[in-house]
């Protein structure tokens, strides 16, 4: 689509080029100025590290921000099985398509759907946390505070269900929520 022309006042102004003066053309004064700056930094950094910004990593570590989430984990039910019911909400919400879930059926249980495979490709993951937002079961969380580790091959960066569950823990959240009974009083006047 063709953009409408902006008013003149808003348009970018062409840069006025001017001829360089003789002194500028010589370059030596400019070079001298440059050398002064670099030499100043050199000297001041050698004697006292005045401007040095480098963090020397293993010895000096930047503190993690308060809201750092870290790697995912899968929460467990009381019997240690995953709370996840393979609803695919997380993999649907995931903007980088890095969650692979294959659903299975457990005929003997009340919640008959469960994830046979649940894998997160941490190389694709952008740690946005959408999956956590989407999960209706408090099954996936990003609160481990564990920084993803570098791996020697791509395969090792994919964490599977067992790995995710091992990092998880039992949660006391009620499946389906207790919202109704808690807010009933408040809603009475609304209805």
């Amino acid at each position, binding site marked *: 689509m063709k953009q409408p022309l902006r008013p003149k006042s808003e348009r970018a102004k062409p840069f006025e080029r001017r001829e360089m003066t003789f002194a500028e053309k010589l370059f030596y004064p400019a070079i001298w100025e440059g050398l002064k700056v670099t030499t100043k930094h050199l000297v001041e950094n050698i004697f006292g590290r005045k401007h040095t910004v480098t963090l020397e990593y293993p010895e000096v570590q930047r503190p993690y921000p308060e809201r750092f989430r870290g790697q995912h984990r899968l929460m467990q039910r009381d019997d240690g099985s995953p709370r996840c019911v393979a609803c695919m909400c997380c993999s*649907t919400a995931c903007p980088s398509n890095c969650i692979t879930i294959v659903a299975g059926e457990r005929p003997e249980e009340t919640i008959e759907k469960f994830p046979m495979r649940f894998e997160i490709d941490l190389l694709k993951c952008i740690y946005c946390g959408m999956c956590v937002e989407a999960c209706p079961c408090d099954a996936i969380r990003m609160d481990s505070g564990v920084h993803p580790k570098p791996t020697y091959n791509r395969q090792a960066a994919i964490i599977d269900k067992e790995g995710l569950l091992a990092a998880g823990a039992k949660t006391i959240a009620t499946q*389906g929520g207790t919202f109704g*009974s808690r807010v009933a009083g408040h809603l009475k006047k609304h209805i």
Partner: protein
Amino acid sequence: MSTVTCTIDGVSVTVEKGTTILEAARTVGIEVPHFCYHPALSIAANCRMCLVHVEKARNPLPACHATVADGMVVDTASEKTKHLQEAVLEFILVNHPVDCPVCDQAGECRLQDYYRDYSARPSRLDVPKVGKPKAKPLGPNVILDAERCILCTRCVRFTEEISKDFQLQTIGRGNHTEIDTFPGTEFDSAYSLNTVDICPVGALTSRDFRFKKRVWLLSRHETVCAGCARGCASFVDHADNTVYRYVPRYNPYVNDHWMCDAGRLRFHELQDHRLRSVMNRDAKGDAEPSVGETLERIAEALRLTENGRLGILLSPSLSNEDIYALRRFGKEAMGARFYVGGRAPGDADEILVMADKNANRLGLETLVSKAALKSLDALAKDLGSGAIDVLLIAGEHELSDAVIEAIDKAAHVVALTNLDAPWLRAVDRVLPTPQTFEYDGTYVSATGRVQRFERGVQPGPSVKPAWELVCKLAKLYGYADLDFASVRSIFKEISLGEAAFRGMNWKALRPFGAQLAGVAETMSPTIHARAGKH
């Protein structure tokens, strides 16, 4: 017939006398929420979702049941009506488990949609819900979650009115009412999966599709079921280049809202036993021979064949465009003899299923005249007498051992086919062709309906439709006249040149197709059954 005029949400509507408020509102694009109403079933008016306020009426009326009268003023959207809808939804949800995360219906669930559109309030319930059986298999194809059932009885009415086998019923009373089969029987109707479609919630789910894929991840394309000569209009739902399910598509001239279970599940066979690679009997090494080089060999053999010594065995399962391209090449370039094979006939019923299991017999007999098509016996005889040197088999066939033996004797046998079959052992070269859901084309149903199907999933790189292979073959053979770039151009030529197809337009084949000239237009048999009801 006399008409009545009423006002719905301020819009004046004139409809035939006897029309319900819900249907009248639909004619002006106003949607009244509903669960138990289904256009092809009788009116039960038991869910109350469609309640609307009518001026001067004492009580709210169910829009699906109440007929419009002259001067009626209906309100479907005011605060007052909204309150009704909210209340009804709240009642329905009282015992609903709301286990959407594990429910296969989520994403295409009416209850979910209506809850979001008409209520969206948190539950006020703090007593335990009534428990009912979950994941209870009703029959070979359908599984019931009784807790999710909202007792709209659509499924019951379907078995009473459409499949007419009365297999489902409601049992129990009040809160404890459930859908079930009669004791000791199972829900094994040949049309049972239709109840899964019409069930507005996730109470009835397909055992085949269950948990395979979330519905919002599926892509949908229009197709035609190639299971029998009825040619039920349907959708193919696929994701990741894999077909996950077939769902019927409304076409009043063919299948109404329904299709049979066998047709729905046939894609498994087509997907699992399909041919993917080119086969060449004289190929050396392990590498797959390419389509181009195989066609080159076939063209070479054809160039050495005298006029009239090529036999073409056509299947009535090929698309019109495939048949047309084959006919033109065979007739014009080679003076070929045509034979007809195809899938063997099977069972039929009074509803949709037909005995002829080929999707396009009428198309074949229209494009290649019935007289020119010789039988399989004639083929065996011609092969035996050495009347044909090269045999080209196109499409899906079920052949008897005698015919296979006869084919084995022919000097050069080429097959353009989609499925693995026993007769392939008698063939020298095989070029794989796509399944119905993998390419574009048209079929003519046994009732003369010309319907279009479109490509859903991508077949493999060596899989090419028969018409394309024939066009390439013609070029290699040296017959330059047959040079189609697309299915559309073939169909255009058919619609210009073939009397029965005259005047048809590729685009206008949507949504319901066109009627073949010379065959009387009929409606779906299920519609006949329903005529005069209510």
